[in-house]
């Protein structure tokens, strides 16, 4: 057996093949943002801020029939071992793009024509799977901002490590493992909005990996729900007059 997977099937950080790292999500952490969230996904620590819908500047960028979604995934210089140059790297530009494309199917952008929605994902500390954690947190922040959504987006990776298909790859497994497959999933609509694969899998392994990642997404989705419910409904009691138009 390889260093990443013991004889008993225990992974390098002590997890079993189908276990997620510890996840903690908080909603509404930034006062000045319209919506915000903070996620700890294993060693990942990420803050997400959502601003908008708001007017587009420059005005010629506005679309007449729907809102523009702008995403920025950014790693802070101290988020990795060696100082990272704060300028957007090739990798960050790619992740910004796939984040936008993972979130877009969930948002009803047609409800806000001629406006823009800005999503800022700042990675304070990074571990493997930060794009999934970023998408998960961004979806929670968008819901917090009160933007019309068809569904939340939950994201989780699966991959192949030490010859086995495992859930939620961490940094070491990502670097030394055989395959990494991040997946973003719309749980109620049962749609996949992000699917990347880095490595080699057979057709059977691919199917197993995708199913495992979707199972992981459902677990993440439950944590997103819990976090939102905690912020909005934990102390809430119904009152007749509270919501009268």
């Amino acid at each position, binding site marked *: 057996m390889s260093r990443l997977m013991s004889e008993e099937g225990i992974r390098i950080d002590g997890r079993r093949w189908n276990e997620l790292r510890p996840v903690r999500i908080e909603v509404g952490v930034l006062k000045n943002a*319209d*919506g915000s969230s903070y996620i700890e996904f294993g060693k990942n620590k990420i803050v997400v801020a959502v601003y*908008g*819908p*708001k*007017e587009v500047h420059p005005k010629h960028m506005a679309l*007449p029939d729907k809102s523009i979604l702008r995403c920025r995934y950014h790693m802070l210089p101290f988020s990795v071992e060696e100082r990272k140059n704060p300028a957007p790297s090739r990798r960050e530009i790619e992740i910004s793009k796939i984040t936008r494309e993972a979130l877009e199917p*969930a948002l*009803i952008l047609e*409800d*806000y*024509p*001629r*406006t823009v929605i800005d999503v800022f994902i700042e990675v304070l500390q990074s571990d493997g799977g930060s794009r999934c954690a970023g998408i998960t947190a961004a979806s929670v922040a968008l*819901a*917090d*901002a*009160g*933007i*019309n*959504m*068809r*569904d*939340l987006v939950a994201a989780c990776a699966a991959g192949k490590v030490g010859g086995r298909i495992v859930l939620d790859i961490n940094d070491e497994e990502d670097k030394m493992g055989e395959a990494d497959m991040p997946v973003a999933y*719309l*749980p*109620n*609509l049962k749609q996949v909005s992000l699917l990347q694969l880095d490595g080699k899998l057979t057709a059977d392994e691919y199917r197993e990996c995708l199913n495992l990642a979707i199972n992981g997404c459902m677990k993440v989705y439950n944590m997103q*729900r819990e976090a*939102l*419910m905690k912020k*909005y*409904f934990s*102390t*809430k*009691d*119904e*009152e*007749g*007059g*509270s*919501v*009268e*138009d």
Partner: protein
Amino acid sequence: MIVKRYVLPGDLIVEGNPHIKPLANVIKIGDRLHSTRIGIVEVSQNGVKVIPLSGIYIPRVGDLVIGKIIDYSALAWEVDINSCFLGHLPAQDVFGKEFTPGRDDLTKRFDKGDVIACRILNFDRTRDPLLTVADKDLGKISEGELVKIGPTKVPRLIGKRGSMIQMIEHLTRCRIVVGQNGVLVVTGADKDMRDVAVKAIKMVEEGAHTMNLTERVKEMLQGVQVGR
């Protein structure tokens, strides 16, 4: 019968009942109705809607809003109405049909930075909301404390048939103009009472979701009165 339930975006509300219509913040996907916001479901005879608990102000025709003049051209003012759309107030609405851009100076009526109470005359998302000040109680607001609250908290501040806002007005002897966009103006002779009214408004905003809020605000206001 009215049934209430808490929902998040994407949550299934009803499945397979073609007689229930989707109203505000509810979408139909196939034969299923899903919520699009964090909020409370309200099922009534007309259909099902979700009352949102977060979000920005989206103008609706007929709403009274309080806005700030941020710019003007030869023909119209641009008004910040605390929304993602800028309000558009045509000069003709103020000067009348005989308005001539060369003769009438827009700044004589409203200048940049002026706060106005206005009503949404027309809006359909394809163009900026059209405003009007041609009604009683509309127009320039020259004095008072400007307070901003979350637009989704406005119905709570007004309360059942205006019970909450009337109670605050009565006990603080202030007048409160509530814009549906979450901007309020508190006017009153006594500075201390105005501050108390602002405090009460903030209290309602923070506790919008809690029970017996009217009672607690009343207690607070009466406590202040006794202390004076």
